[in-house]
């Protein structure tokens, strides 16, 4: 077993910074209205002398201009769950701990390589998503959690080395029950190594079974007792914008964030999305932009391009305050098969992406395919679809059809072939009785025209043999 721990020290701040990329001093505040205190701050605020734990009033005295946002625990939980969904692509065993995720990676070695390779991938993913993180790996999840809090990038790969790695960890950082953490240093026990060597009976008498349980979980003598993360079957994310947006172009940045988050989530779930909905929330009501794709997709660029195309055509009746992305159905994603000896140029776009691009600008119905039906009447002989029905007609059919037959003007055409009697459709109230001919007009065009049976004039043009 090898557990990786992703410690997320500034989850609340990163979540806020993702929404507003423009820098400037920013703090998160929490507490009762009268005594608001700073709970997180970015580098610029820190440089100005602000500190965590400071009163908001004291901070305002130090720095004239900074943004203060309320700390939102629900927001933090949502980001943590989102990252669990991202981590799910590396392991089916992902669990949430306070400010951290742990995942079992030893079974993923075959797919992703050894720990350094997985570590690099995790690090790239988290950096791309904009979350600061610390990584550690250890044979038990709790040990990984402790080591991530002590040092960045520490990896204990063999169970035999675990005790040695834990030896020097200060008791204060060992994430033990609070009573023990406070009392042990006063008793002269400063490191985990010292604590682990103490007689168990004495520890149980002094601190109860709780401390021994957490120590056993730490070294792996006791099951970790984690409740594993189960990815939800739908996506419903909402972000509030920091100011009112009146121009849909200004929504591009948050939408890009949301679609790339969606892509990361779908990759973790090995799923795709065929239809998702963007709610642009106004002060009253919301504009709903539905993004439908031809087939399940999960590429960040594809999703973003489809969303942007629809968004550009949306008129905003009122300023937008918040964005919400909903995807109810996440069907399995089947990657498109490619020929190993594909001769297409290297920058070639997949056909699906090209069709999405055309649909985004020209409308959802703009790209279509035609298929034959078994109905012989020309008006009903084809439909929009991809599956041909029926066999190839033995009679000549033109290459162009007219929407509806029109009278053929000019002198009488020369008959080249025919007639083909079409007498059908009596069962559905739209009967057809016509004699079709292939004719040549005076201008040299080949046409498909018909006469009522038995007549010699009144040519109706129905198609061209172009």
């Amino acid at each position: 077993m090898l557990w990786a721990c992703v410690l997320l020290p500034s989850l609340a701040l990163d979540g806020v910074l993702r929404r507003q990329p423009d820098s400037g001093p920013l703090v998160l505040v929490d507490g009762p209205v009268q005594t608001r205190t700073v709970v997180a701050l970015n580098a610029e605020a820190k440089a100005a002398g602000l500190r965590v734990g400071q009163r908001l009033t004291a901070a305002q005295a130090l720095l004239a201009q900074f943004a203060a946002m309320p700390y939102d625990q629900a927001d933090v939980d949502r980001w943590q769950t989102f990252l669990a969904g991202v981590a799910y692509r590396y392991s089916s065993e992902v669990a949430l701990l306070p400010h951290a995720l742990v995942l079992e990676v030893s079974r993923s070695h075959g797919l992703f390589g050894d720990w350094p390779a997985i570590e690099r991938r995790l690090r790239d993913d988290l950096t791309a998503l904009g979350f600061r993180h610390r990584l550690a790996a250890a044979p038990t999840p709790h040990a990984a959690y402790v080591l991530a809090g002590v040092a960045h990038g520490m990896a204990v790969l063999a169970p035999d080395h675990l005790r040695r790695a834990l030896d020097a960890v200060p008791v204060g950082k060992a994430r033990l029950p609070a009573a023990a953490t406070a009392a042990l240093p006063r008793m002269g026990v400063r490191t985990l190594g010292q604590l682990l060597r103490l007689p168990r009976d004495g520890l149980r008498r002094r601190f109860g079974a709780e401390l021994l349980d957490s120590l056993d979980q730490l070294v792996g003598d006791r099951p970790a007792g984690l409740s594993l993360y189960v990815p939800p079957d739908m996506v419903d994310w909402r972000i509030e914008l920091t100011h009112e947006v009146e121009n849909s172009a200004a929504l591009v940045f948050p939408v890009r964030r949301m679609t790339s988050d969606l892509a990361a989530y779908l990759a973790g779930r090995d799923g795709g999305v065929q239809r998702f909905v963007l709610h642009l929330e106004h002060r009253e009501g919301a504009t709903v932009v539905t993004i439908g794709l031809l087939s399940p997709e999960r590429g960040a660029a594809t999703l973003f391009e489809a969303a942007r195309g629809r968004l550009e055509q949306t008129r905003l009746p009122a300023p937008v305050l918040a964005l919400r992305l909903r995807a109810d159905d996440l069907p399995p994603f089947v990657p498109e098969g490619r020929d190993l000896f594909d001769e297409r140029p290297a920058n070639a776009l997949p056909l699906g992406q090209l069709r999405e691009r055309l649909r985004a600008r020209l409308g959802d119905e703009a790209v279509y395919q035609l298929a034959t039906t078994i109905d012989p009447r020309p008006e009903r002989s084809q439909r929009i679809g991809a599956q041909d029905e029926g066999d190839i007609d033995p009679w000549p059919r033109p290459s162009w059809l007219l929407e509806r037959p029109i009278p053929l003007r000019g002198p009488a055409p020369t008959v080249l072939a025919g007639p083909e009697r079409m007498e059908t459709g009596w069962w559905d109230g739209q009967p057809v009785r016509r004699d079709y001919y292939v004719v040549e007009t005076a201008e040299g065009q080949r046409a498909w025209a018909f006469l009522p049976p038995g007549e010699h004039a009144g040519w109706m043009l129905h198609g061209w043999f172009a």
Partner: protein
Amino acid sequence: MGAVVALSDLVDARQVWRGRAAPIPAGDQPTGLAALDAVLPTAGWPDASVSEILMPLDGVGELRLVLPTLARLTQGQRPVVVIAPPYVPCAMGWRQRGLRLSQVHFVMAAEADVLWAAEQCLRSGACAAVLVWPKQADDRALRRLQVAAADGQALGFVFRDRRYLVNSSPAPLRLELAAHPSPAIWVRKCRGGNPPAQPVPFPATVH
């Protein structure tokens, strides 16, 4: 002016140089019409380029000219895109001519978007051939299509009215269809060779 200068000296001094024909672009796209292939320097459609087809009026064989090529491409599972066709394509008629309709995609586009869509399709590299009927396309628009076709390694077929024949065009191949006195194809321009003086007969079959 009396001094006689040997031509070889001028050539050596690079003041005079020999013109050399540009290499003929290799063609791998037979038109399906042996008589036409025989007169074209590329022995078929110029690869990764736009071919312009000019016609006096609709229905004189413009599709008959390209459908054999499209049939060959779609049977090889290569997608073909048809943008803003002037009439409804007859699915059964196209099947009779050997096309596999599952590989043919039609695009409905307003007049202003036709050239944009054509350029996107040509440049994407996803399509083997793109057919387009622009109502108004100037020299620059065609050049954009030509560059896009070269980028995406696709065949572009641009169908226009015969009156645009007098305008110059960046397309490497320009064909004009004639209905009188008998159906024929005039090669008006072909890169890599001189256009033949005689038209290529283009006999119509019922199918």
